[in-house]
């Protein structure tokens, strides 16, 4: 990419208060960037720091959370902005869609209210103009009979429809970046495909940048241009979708892809990953992945590898790098 990216996170470290008075580091030294109109997939197991990285873009850390590093967006560093200014960026320039559409909508507010409250807050427009815009958005996300849908409440819609409404809410103020946190995980498979198609179309129609957070490599490969893999709070591999998904170079990415069901003749082959992800309070020394890694060597116990470029547009955090030329 030659032009400056829309968002660039540089050396982001997030700390949270731990139970014993110490501090935990769910995200350590993470850098990633998202270009205009680009869909970047952020993948990893639960607890790898994906969601908290996304929340940091909105300045919405859990109580007691602290950040260091830089988040450059629109010519400013979000980490140095006062809380009020970040609140203005939230929902207006950067919007978010959450995992479970059954709980992410307010059960007692009409769809109209939920679609327009932030629109009216950020833009100061009147109820009528906001309603016109709300109808436009419901049509954009393919909700039938948009004018009537405005008067209804979330419980009157199915899960897939609710997720479309949540996307419409996120798009209300024409944000430049949409963060989609596991947007299809809580939905039926058939409905998932519809939401993925919708996100793809919206990127085309609106030139939207999307940070897609998922642990589902299938969703990842359907949608993203570039992929960032996180493990235990750090980025372990980044690259284009085809490179990473077809020729993973980090052993963790390799296992993650191996844990997907493959078609292999008539059988579905599943290779579950060994072990469990480490807790952020008790990381193993050296490379945090070494206890689960098939290629681990003695030095992996001592050195925590940094992310380094191995090809143009490709970086991994592994000192062994055993997978050159090995397909997924």
């Amino acid at each position: 990419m030659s032009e400056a990216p829309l968002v660039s996170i540089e050396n982001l470290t997030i700390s949270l208060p731990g139970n014993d008075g110490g501090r935990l580091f769910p995200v350590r030294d993470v850098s990633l960037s998202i270009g205009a109109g680009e869909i970047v997939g952020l993948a990893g197991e639960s607890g790898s720091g994906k969601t908290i990285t996304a929340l940091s873009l909105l300045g919405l850390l859990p109580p007691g959370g602290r950040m260091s590093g830089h988040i450059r967006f629109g010519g400013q560093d979000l980490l140095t902005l006062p809380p009020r200014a970040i609140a203005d960026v939230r929902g207006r320039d950067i919007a978010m869609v959450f995992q479970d559409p059954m709980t992410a909508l307010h059960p007692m507010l009409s769809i109209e209210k939920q679609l327009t409250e932030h629109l009216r807050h950020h833009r100061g427009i009147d109820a009528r103009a906001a309603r016109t815009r709300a109808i436009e958005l419901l049509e954009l996300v393919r909700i039938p009979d948009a004018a009537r849908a405005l008067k209804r409440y979330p419980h009157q819609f199915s899960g897939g429809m609710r997720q479309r409404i949540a996307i419409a809410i996120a798009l209300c103020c024409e944000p430049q970046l949409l963060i989609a946190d596991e947007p299809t995980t809580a939905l039926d498979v058939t409905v998932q495909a519809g939401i993925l198609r919708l996100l793809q179309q919206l990127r085309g129609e609106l030139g939207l940048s999307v940070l897609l957070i998922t642990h589902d490599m299938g969703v990842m490969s359907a949608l993203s241009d570039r992929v960032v893999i996180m493990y235990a709070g750090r980025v372990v591999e980044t690259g284009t979708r085809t490179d990473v998904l077809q020729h993973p170079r980090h052993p963790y990415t390799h296992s993650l892809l191996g844990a997907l069901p493959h078609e292999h003749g008539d059988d579905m082959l599943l290779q579950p990953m060994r072990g469990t992800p480490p807790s952020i309070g008790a990381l193993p020394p050296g490379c945090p992945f070494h206890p689960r890694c098939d290629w681990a060597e003695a030095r992996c116990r001592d050195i925590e590898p940094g992310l380094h470029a191995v090809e143009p547009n490709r970086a991994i955090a592994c000192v062994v790098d055993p997978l050159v030329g090995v397909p997924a």
Partner: protein
Amino acid sequence: MQQPIKRAWYALPSLVRFILRRLAIGVLLCVGVTLVSFTLTQIVPGDPVAASLGDQASSDPETVAAFRQRFGLDKPLPEQYLIYVTNLAQGNFGESLQTRRPVADDLAKYMSATIELSLVAMTFAMLAGVALGIIAAVNRDRWPDQVIRVISLAGVSVPTFWLSLVCLYVFFFQLGWSPGVGRLSPGAAAPMNLTGLYTVDALLTGNWKTLGSALAHLALPAMVLAIYTIGAITRFTRAAMLDAFQQDYVRAARAKGMPERTVVMRHVLRPALASIITVSGMAFGRMLGGAVLVESVFSWPGLGEYAYRSALALDLRAIMGVSLVIAAVYILVNLLVDILYAIVDPRIRLS
């Protein structure tokens, strides 16, 4: 049900049907209450005749027989009950053994005093309880929360009668801030009887001096009566809000960039409101119970006072009248709670 009636019934809006159905059930409940209170007044040891007539008159068999006949106490119990219920259906609550006046008149008079007291106390309790609950929840585990938690715990723990006595002693005898007991200062004339609520009547007739006096007399007993309810509503509001703060849609509202004020009021308080309303309904029931104690300490001529005196005098009709009125208030408050619930929560309204 006949076809046309059935059709007319289903033509009504669902909320109206709901209210009518609940009212019908309420009437049945009231009939049940009369049966229970009638039975209970028969079971309690003690002779209403002796209690009414005094030692000397009740030792004369003829006087006793005349008294029994006058009040229908000589008839068999089932017949007494039937007569009572038949009269009741015509709005006749019977005659008080004690005041010798129709119980309906007594109830109307004492009821209005209690309604005035408990309405003011309830309004105050809801405003203060919800406000304190919000402050505590927003400042969770910080000092305002700690202070409010102690206050609300004290509120639900302190016995009402004890608090009444202490407050009367401190604010009336010691500090002189309160004008004392009763509904008005001695010598002040009651305002023209429109609603029976002195403050409202004084306001409507432009009688400012009486209004001032009525308000001054109302303040302390209402405050004392409200204390428990404030504690209960505060604790409940805090818990319901903390629960609502965990919801995904609150995080979603913050992600939309809504100001924290709006998030708290619209996205946290609103969902918590439904359960706060339910608890307030129950607290109101308990408040009517507490009113008996507060009224007797503050010589407030209300239903509690009346019930207390009637019970001492074994005044059967009056006791049954009071039970019936309180049961009816309970039923109406619960109906109101359910209606408010439906207004607040579209999931109930629209299903």
